[in-house]
């Protein structure tokens, strides 16, 4: 019997069955991969493990003891620590207080800040993470916040550690730090569950794996020796995907998007580039390179202090999102929870929020049939797993929310330029493939596409051209043919760090 056993777990929500009769075990001193399409039930399983949900059927057995958690506190008590897919931090509190949330040390009834600070510094150092314990979380980048979340779980010294897509916002280097941590913890005999849609991470870290599909277990791999990537994909999505990127060359037209001398917050020197009709330009950089900030300036989400943006030769009004949209420029933000979804509204609402202005009756009445149709098309096309289009979007799994937000922009009919920031964050392989296909189709229709991504294979696999940013400036530009991993990475690393780091970079298989 394994250290941690899930036995016949089932869980239903109103209108949705998330898990049915799932059993598997996780050994101490091993990393167990959990795979499955978006909405397969992985996070739900983790929330059951974390005491957040009570299963309808089945039970947990830890170290031979059956356990029934009634709350998150129960699970913590039992030695379970979870890194949630949706980051759960308190923005107004410091790194230290977030790390020690619920267990600050006290002296004579008062919080012992000094001891807490010392402890935090020391432990962070030991983990090889460089964060100021006094910085407030809201001052950190997403990647840094995710790092804090990881440390928060790790520092609990739990016996069981579950990581639900921990790398979705991490750069290579932070990922390295994380992997080192996981290996250390394995050596210490912890039982770990690792969820990711990045298969190379699974191969690199995991000893065993379980695959979910539609809330059921479809495969168990006690070892990953000799298992191929294709096998996993096949079991996950139920079909063959030979080349996930499936790049298709296409003809390119004239310059559609012309960015000239754009300056603003987080931009170190004026930024300029062109994108042609039908071209896909990948923007690569490490966390904090300033890509997202640049794109927000171009779109008008933040006000720029200088420069122009033109589409098909027509200059857009500065800092005006609506004029950008009317000009055919759309931006899909990277932080889906903060900037993307409108949680309490339905999937259909979220998909139609922008495009519906084109289908108004009498200038103000929404066209409900049209909206329903649009929603259904995307739900089917991108396989958005939801009981129906009326479901509140916050109840969808992370990946499915991402797909719905993407649909919002794909539904625009006079799309000319699409800026898409981390489009496949948290998305399963099958759907990734589908999204790339949609991007190609759009490009074939003549749309100019800017894709910001921190996944190097994706940038290399999908783009016609790659632009690299570092420290708020453009540091390199490559054609598809020129772009190699080493060349691109070298430009993405800050000067100085470049040489030291080039060797330690993980090699990633596409």
């Amino acid at each position, binding site marked *: 019997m394994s250290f941690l056993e899930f036995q016949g777990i089932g869980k239903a929500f109103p209108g949705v069955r998330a898990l049915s009769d799932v059993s598997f075990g996780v050994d101490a001193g091993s990393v167990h991969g959990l795979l499955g399409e978006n909405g397969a039930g992985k996070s739900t399983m983790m929330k059951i493990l974390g005491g957040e949900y009570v299963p309808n059927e089945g039970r947990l057995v830890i170290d031979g003891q059956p356990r029934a958690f009634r709350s998150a506190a129960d699970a913590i008590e039992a030695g379970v620590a979870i890194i949630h897919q949706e980051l759960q931090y308190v923005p107004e509190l410091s790194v230290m207080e977030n790390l020690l949330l619920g267990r600050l040390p006290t002296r004579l009834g008062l919080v012992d800040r000094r001891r807490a600070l010392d402890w935090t510094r020391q432990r962070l150092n030991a983990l090889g993470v460089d964060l100021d314990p006094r910085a407030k979380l809201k001052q950190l980048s997403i990647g840094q916040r995710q790092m804090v979340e990881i440390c928060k779980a790790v520092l609990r010294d739990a016996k069981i550690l579950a990581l639900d897509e921990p790398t979705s916002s991490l750069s290579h280097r932070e990922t390295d730090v994380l992997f080192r941590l996981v290996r250390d913890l394995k050596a210490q005999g912890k039982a770990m569950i690792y969820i990711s849609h990045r298969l190379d991470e699974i191969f690199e870290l995991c000893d065993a794996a379980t695959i979910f599909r539609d809330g059921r277990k479809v495969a168990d791999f006690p070892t990953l020796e000799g298992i191929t990537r294709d096998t996993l994909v096949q079991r996950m999505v139920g079909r063959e995907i030979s080349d996930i990127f499936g790049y298709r060359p296409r003809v390119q037209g004239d310059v559609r998007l012309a960015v000239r001398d754009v300056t603003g917050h987080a931009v170190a020197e004026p930024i300029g580039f062109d994108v042609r009709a039908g071209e896909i330009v990948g923007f690569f950089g490490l966390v904090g390179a300033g890509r997202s900030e640049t794109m927000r300036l171009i779109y008008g989400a933040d006000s720029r202090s200088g420069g122009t943006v033109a589409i098909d030769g027509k200059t857009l009004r500065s800092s005006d999102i609506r004029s950008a949209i009317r000009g055919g420029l759309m931006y899909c933000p990277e932080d889906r929870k903060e900037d993307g979804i409108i949680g309490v509204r339905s999937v259909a609402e979220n998909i139609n929020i922008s495009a519906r202005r084109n289908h108004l009756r009498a200038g103000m009445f929404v066209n409900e049939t049209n909206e329903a149709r649009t929603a259904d098309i995307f739900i*089917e096309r991108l396989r958005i797993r939801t009981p129906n289009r009326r479901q509140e979007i916050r109840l969808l799994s992370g990946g499915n929310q991402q797909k719905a937000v993407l649909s919002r922009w794909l539904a625009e009919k006079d799309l000319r330029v699409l800026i898409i920031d981390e489009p496949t964050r948290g998305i399963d392989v099958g759907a990734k493939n589908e999204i790339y296909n949609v991007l190609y189709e759009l490009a074939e229709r003549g749309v100019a596409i800017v894709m910001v991504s921190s996944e190097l294979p994706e940038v290399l696999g999908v783009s016609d051209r790659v632009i690299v940013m570092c420290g708020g400036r453009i540091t390199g530009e490559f054609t598809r043919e020129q772009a190699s991993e080493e060349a691109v990475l070298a430009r993405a690393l800050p000067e100085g760090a470049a040489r030291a780091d080039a060797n330690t970079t993980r090699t990633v298989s596409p």
Partner: protein
Amino acid sequence: MTDSKTAPALDLAPGSSNTERRAAFWRFVDDYSLILIFIALFAVLSCTVEYFFSWDNVVGLALSVSQIGMVACTMMFCLASRDFDLSVGSTVAFAGVLCAIVSNATGSVTLGIAAALMAGAAIGFVNGAVIAKLKINALITTLATMEIVRGLAFISSQGQAVGVANEAFFSIGSSILFGLPAPVWVTLACFVLFGVLLNKTIYGRNTLAIGGNPDAARLAGVSVDRTRILIFLVQGAVAALAGIILASRMTSGQPNAGEGFELNVISACVLGGVSLMGGRASISGVLVGVLIMGTVQNAMSLMNIDAFYQYLVRGTILLIAVLVDQLKNRRQSR
């Protein structure tokens, strides 16, 4: 774009038609729980309280909630967009006073009404502009305008009720159409109008989107500031309308009218399921919220309940109503 060969990947909720029917039933109960509560309340009161179920009484009840009802419609928008408006009570008073003053000065009731409506819209515009553009907290902003506008009402009337000379003015509040008083018709019209606006128009949908997540709405191209200002402007105008009708019913504009009005309106909305966190609202909920509040008060008067005990009853009923409504959420979560 319609490569829909691949079968819908998901087989959701396998369940038999039986569980489906049960789910549908619960969905119905969920959606209409408050309405059901109200119907039950109404039925019980009809059977137990003498005179409650009579045409006269029902009309009186409708009249008593007509002002609150009107403003609740627009307050619903305000709350749905995650805002808050405490200034409506003062606006009701000021509009009544202003309408009376201008009517007397010009001899024209129409001019008086126009002036009051415009003043109301202006107050709303100021609220909206300060909140949306200067990004000041809505509670503080409207608390400030609540004070300022109340001050204007007292100053312009010198603290005295302003009677209206022109008798035509009184007919707004007292004339009867098809058996119902005019104010009730106006309120019904508001419910229909704002119901349609909320559910069928881009204005309503944008309001809900803004309330759900203002940042996301802005990035999706919703003109957040403009919509918020519009919401407050309309709210101001409707509060002024309520003030005019109230003045007409009372045959004078009173500077201390509408005190505590804002809390009643907001409670009715919240009771009707409008979320203070924004993004969620239903017009039928608000209607029922308004009706429950009015009905309880009405029944207490009919039952001759002691003034002090009325406080207890009001508070308790309020709690019970939300509690029962809450049960559905409990069933839903976990």
